[in-house]
């Protein structure tokens, strides 16, 4: 698996993706990890709010809302 991927924020609605990397400080990585957002995990985009608003994703059977900035630190590949 390559480390390229696209930003989570660029994945279209209703698509599934797999997380390939999280580019962020240890704090952010941990914060995301305890919610199940970590490398190798499959996720689905549920909704995107307009004007650079937050994204809602489905992960581990539950839904999470994340700020747009955070989703620009998560690299994924669309599957």
């Amino acid at each position, binding site marked *: 698996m390559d480390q390229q991927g696209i930003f989570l924020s660029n994945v279209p609605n209703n698509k599934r993706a797999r997380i390939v990397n999280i580019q962020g400080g240890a704090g952010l990585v941990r914060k995301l990890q305890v*919610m199940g957002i970590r490398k190798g995990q499959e996720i689905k985009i549920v909704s995107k709010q307009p004007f650079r*608003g937050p994204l809602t994703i489905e992960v581990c059977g539950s839904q999470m809302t*994340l700020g747009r900035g955070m989703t620009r630190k998560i690299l994924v590949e669309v599957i």
Partner: protein
Amino acid sequence: MGNPNVGKSVVFSRLTGANVIASNYPGTTVDFSKGKMRLDGEHVEIIDAPGTYSLEPTNKAEEVALEMLKEADVVINVVNATNLERNLYSTLELLERDIPVVIALNIWDETQHLGIHIDKKELEKILGVPVVPTVALTGEGIKELVSQIKNAKTNDKIKLTSEEGRWVEIGSIIKKVEQLEHRHHSIKDIISDLTIKPITGLPIAVGIVFFAFWLVRLIGENLIAYVFDPIFYNLYLPLIENLSEWIGGPGLVHTLLIGEYGKEIVFEESLGMLTTGLYVPIAMVMPYIMAFYFMLSILEDTGYMPRLATLVDNIFHKLGMHGHGIVPVFLGLGCNVPGALSTRTLETRKQRFISATLLAIAVPCMAQTAMVFGILGPYGMYYIGLVFLTLAILYIIMGLILNRVVKGESPEIFLEIPPYRRPSFKTTLKKTWMRVRWFLKEAIPFLFLGVVAINLLYYVGFLGWLGDVLSPVMYGLFGLPGDASIAMVVGFLRKDLAVGMLIPLGMSPLQLVVAATMLTVYFPCVATFVVLLRELGIKDMIKSVAIMVSTAAVVGFILRIILLGW
């Protein structure tokens, strides 16, 4: 202990019989509650800790939880069975510590609908501690949980590892104990999607909020017209009239208890402890508080609030907070005190400061709202709208300014969206009652004291003097009669009472708009003040108060120029 929104508080209330508030969104428990239960003939103390995703705290509520852990003898780890993978992280962290644990596998009933099969025996074997499936809402499995508390164990096999290590371990545990069935999109999923996608979600949100407030007004007005007013006017008024005759003449006692002797008793204006002091909070404000928290409980228990937070995140982010900032606003619309407490769920000092200050400035509590409707209602909706429009604009402008001025970080939204649940009527009523009782406990003493203090200050001539002294300021700057300053002073004690005091001053509707708006903005009531002081600390509170007072002055002045002319 356990993750947020897994039903810890419900388990707690099942174990102890205590009343605690639970909602279908993370972070309802911001403080801990203690309760007692009998276990094998012994009294043990049980503590309900705020939810934590991990034992490395990221907000104040989580810090509180960690403090609790240090004192605990046994931990009841409440785990969401529908989301085992994520919940096990803090379970493993707990097991690494040297503390006996028993696990409650809660929300067990929903696993069946969701097609999740968990091998409880296997999980017990791997973790080496008792695991009890529970449905706290109905009480299923709670007896078993109680009997297993004494079997709580530590686990010696699980050693302190890295985060990575824990995740690897969770992965292997899940493989062994959990099986997933494929399931179809249910009606709940469809509603969930519709309410969070912006195109459909925003109109629905506007609709829900309008409907909610329409309902509050409808319920509140009917409660007053058919329950509270008949009680006060038909049953209570004759009693008071008798009492007045029995006292028999003017004097301090009559003034304090009933109001000025010889005048007709008017519940809204007489200013006696037993007249205005009781009527305003109980018959004018409480019906709306009841209606409001009933409506809010339904919104909370269904799980709508996090969706609303997602939809409004954009606006709140520009005000230096994030979407969760809507929760203090909503709670504050009932009574500012629970609103102030809920600012704790925001992560940074900056966010809490902005949220708390804006709450005190621009979020009128139900007491104020009811009084604003009371004094301006006769003149028409236009004037009421003017007050609320000013407050809404103020919330946004002050937020934009504070976001620039206040130093510190304001992290982005990061919020779990729980599945929709059907609220149970019984829990909703119970929760409404608990919050109403809360209002009674806080409001009644202050109103009583307020009425006494005002009457005494009047009696000794202090208020008259103050009115005279401030009269040039009031008139010159804000175009208000000097006596309005008395209402401002009273507003420190109770806002509702203060708004009521504006009635006999004979002001024009526009003057009333200016006065009512200023009353809302310039200072929170004493109860809110005390809570804010505790939450923000003395230094930030001084800053916050300075902002409130100067905002009130500026807004009052601007309104005066716009509405009353120079």
